[in-house]
């Protein structure tokens, strides 16, 4: 196999493995107190896949560890023992997951996956023996005492004597022209191993391409025994991709296992085929999108997932850039200055059609990049669990709105901030259970992680019911570090709390494993800045702390309204605009401190003059002569005075050149159809000044 093949296979392998480990962790953390049968099945299935794939890629250490866990869950599934020490069980599985993650990280960095899993596998096997010891009435499986280090790509599940075994024979014809029949046959055999044993098939050596014509002509014959009933087998085989015809016969139960001595090559002998099959399996049935990782989703996913493909993000990025250029050049053509004053009826009709297609295309490209937050959110369960165990705290993490979707590039930048805030909340915010009961709070603390859409932004809220932020302590610390710029009594509580986002700030006197080193909260702000987001903190002493992260839904293309001020164009995101209107002189008034206001339909709004805000000369200064635009940001509303409206426009957002310092009220710039530049207004800026 060439390096290239291995490279691309490795990439898929890592992708799939990471996904499985995430799924595993969230299942375990959900299950923590007691595992139900669905969860046991789910974990068993995950471990089985991890074992199979890693053995195929010849990472024997991963395969060994996962094999021991698989054995453990096989026992749990079949014998359903009572009174298990679930906490220890979870610890074992999680340490297994950690081992796999560690090895994956090595593989990803191009290093040798050289971790020794023998000891861990041993520990887990011993644990299995131990729980079996408590259950002497079950004389069941012989767990492998040695960790499986063999290339057990497709080692059949150890059989249980207690099960009722049925013997089946199936003949499968693939559709004409589906190609690679031999590999498909191999995949089929591989999938069967989840619940079947003593598999023999004809032709024997499916990896040999010469068998293809035979399979085409005679079909693929396969014999196996399984504890599942006829309907289950029929349904499972019926899901085979490119299946044309399936005949399944039950041969009756075999009297003795010895009768089923393989007459043809057992699958273990074709490791090369095994490797190819990983790829094929990936192509046919890649892992489900992260949303499927949601709790309790144990439905068999192979059938539905066959419509998914995984695409390299860099290709999506390139597509998005091209999309941006297309939007600009479309505007350059349709709004070309040379067209002015011409009678172009059919031209305009066609350009409207073009506009429609470009808009649809753009929405499709954007939607391809949208990923639900669920994977990021569910990872937090593990962090909460680990921290609770180490700090002896009892915290329940509630997740709301995890289905909210955000651009792929943005999601990468918000996982760390969320993690740091949650750590911070549990470490600093949540009290020890004893202190909580003294404060008349339930012993179990709650941390709420919530996402919701708000206009063009996503709001992520992390709320705990801990002790809240001690503003006096924060201010003292800020003063100590020379961060304050005005007298203590001039700071509002809100301003003081924002100090915790500054680099090197931590009020924790002792450094713990989780926080206190003073790194962390500034990571929140710096990570968010990259994607144009902001972080706010609010706290009520004794009642808890709420962090709110505001993140733009997408980075690059925004629907905007172009406005004119003193001859220059500015773009306001449509999502922020409520309406625009002309002011009537009788509705205007000024308060004693000189703030201009307007009454509109019985409500009173502040007026912000854009030209004053930005110190622009030569703008319309008579409010009634210009146009007012009513803007909202969260719950705040303001009326903005501009000279005139120009029209709605797709704005391809470009960041300000790095050399320019950040200007409050501006979020970036955009190119207009005629090549002019328009500055994009950041509505939030009008509310903080």
């Amino acid at each position, binding site marked *: 196999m060439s390096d290239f093949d291995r490279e691309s296979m490795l990439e898929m392998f890592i992708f799939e493995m990471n996904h499985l480990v995430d799924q595993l962790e969230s299942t375990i953390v959900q299950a923590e107190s007691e595992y139900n049968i669905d969860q046991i099945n789910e974990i068993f299935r995950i471990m089985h896949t991890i074992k199979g794939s890693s053995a195929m890629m010849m990472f024997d250490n991963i395969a060994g560890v996962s094999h021991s866990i698989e054995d453990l869950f096989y026992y749990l599934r079949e014998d359903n023992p009572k009174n298990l020490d679930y906490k220890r069980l979870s610890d074992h599985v999680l340490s297994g997951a950690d081992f796999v993650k560690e090895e994956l990280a090595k593989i990803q960095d191009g290093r040798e996956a050289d971790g020794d899993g023998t000891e861990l596998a041993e520990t887990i096997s011993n644990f299995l023996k131990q729980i079996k010891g408590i259950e002497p009435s079950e004389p069941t499986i012989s767990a492998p005492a040695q960790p499986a280090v063999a290339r057990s790509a497709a080692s059949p599940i150890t059989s249980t004597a207690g099960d009722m075994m049925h013997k089946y024979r199936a003949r499968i014809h693939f559709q004409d022209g589906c190609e690679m029949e031999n590999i498909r046959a191999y995949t089929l055999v591989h999938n069967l191993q989840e619940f079947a044993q003593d598999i023999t098939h004809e032709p024997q050596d499916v990896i040999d391409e010469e068998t293809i014509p035979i399979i085409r002509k005679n079909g693929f014959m396969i014999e196996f025994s399984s504890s599942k009933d006829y309907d289950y087998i029929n349904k499972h085989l019926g899901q085979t991709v490119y299946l044309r015809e399936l005949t399944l016969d039950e041969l009756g139960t075999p009297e003795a296992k010895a009768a089923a001595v393989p007459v043809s090559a057992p699958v273990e002998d074709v490791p090369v085929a095994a490797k190819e099959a990983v790829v094929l399996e990936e192509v046919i049935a890649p892992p489900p999108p992260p949303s499927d990782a949601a709790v309790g989703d144990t439905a068999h996913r192979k059938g539905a997932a066959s419509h998914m493909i995984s695409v390299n993000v860099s290709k999506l990025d390139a597509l998005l850039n091209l999309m941006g250029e297309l939007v*600009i050049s479309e505007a350059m053509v349709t709004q070309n200055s040379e067209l002015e004053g011409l009678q172009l009826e059919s031209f305009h009709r066609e350009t409207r059609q073009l506009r429609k297609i470009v808009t649809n295309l753009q929405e499709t490209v954007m939607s391809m990049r949208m990923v639900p937050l669920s994977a990021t959110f569910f990872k937090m369960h593990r962090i909460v669990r680990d921290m609770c165990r180490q700090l002896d705290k009892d915290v329940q993490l509630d997740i709301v709105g995890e289905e909210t979707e955000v651009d792929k590039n943005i999601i990468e930048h918000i996982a760390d901030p969320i993690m740091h805030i949650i750590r911070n909340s549990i470490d600093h915010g949540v009290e020890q259970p004893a202190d909580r009961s003294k404060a008349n709070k339930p012993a179990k603390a709650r941390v709420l992680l919530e996402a919701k859409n708000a206009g063009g932004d996503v709001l992520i809220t992390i709320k705990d019911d801990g002790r809240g932020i001690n503003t006096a302590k924060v201010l003292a610390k800020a003063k100590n570090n020379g961060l304050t710029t005005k007298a203590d009594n001039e700071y509002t509580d809100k301003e003081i709390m924002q100090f915790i986002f500054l680099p090197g700030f931590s009020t924790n006197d002792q450094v713990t494993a989780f926080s206190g080193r003073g790194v962390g909260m500034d990571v929140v702000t710096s990570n968010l800045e990259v994607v144009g987001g902001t972080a706010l903190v609010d706290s009520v002493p004794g009642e808890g702390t709420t962090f709110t992260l505001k993140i733009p839904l997408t980075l690059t293309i925004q629907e905007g309204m172009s406005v004119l001020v003193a001859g*220059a164009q500015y773009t306001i995101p449509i999502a922020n605009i409520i309406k625009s209107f002309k002011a009537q002189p009788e509705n205007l008034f000024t308060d004693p401190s000189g703030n201009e206001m307007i009454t509109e339909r019985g409500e009173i709004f502040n007026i912000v003059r854009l030209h004053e805000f930005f110190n622009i000369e030569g703008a319309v200064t008579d409010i009634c002569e210009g146009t007012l635009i009513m803007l909202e940001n969260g719950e705040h509303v303001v009326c903005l005075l501009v000279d005139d409206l120009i029209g709605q426009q797709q704005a391809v957002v470009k960041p300000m*050149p*790095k*050399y*320019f310092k950040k200007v*409050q009220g501006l979020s970036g710039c955009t190119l207009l159809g005629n090549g002019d*530049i*328009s*500055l994009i207004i950041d509505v939030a800026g009008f509310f903080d000044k």
Partner: protein
Amino acid sequence: MATVQNMLEEERHDDTIKDQYLTFAIEDEDYGVEIAYVKEIIKMTPITKVPEMPNFIEGLINLRGDLIGVLDVRKRFNKPSKDHDEETCIIVIMYSDYTLGMIVDAVQETAIIPEERIFAPPSAKLSYANQFIRNIGKVGDEVKLLMDIERFLAQD
């Protein structure tokens, strides 16, 4: 500062651009900027003002789809502004992470100024604009003031 010096040293090793300076005029003086920093020279184009910027930052221009910032060298040197004319140019420079345009009265030529023709400026800071001058180079009898780009771009 040390790293910048290192960078300059490295670039001097490149023979094709060694000792080469692009010279331009501001008022009655001739200035030079190392050619290694110069990306291109373009004629004046419409500039979009950006609010709340230091006075010497003129705004943004569209350079074939890229948006880059533009600085007015006259304003940076605290010299009276002058109406833009036929000769007014924007020199696009690339320095560290930045791509920026500098508005100059006129671009003159590419001059080769070997090291032995370069002298340190008089130590006394004679004028405000002097702080942006690193060295003085001589081409024949003419004096070229060689710019300190780092100082020039610093936004105190």
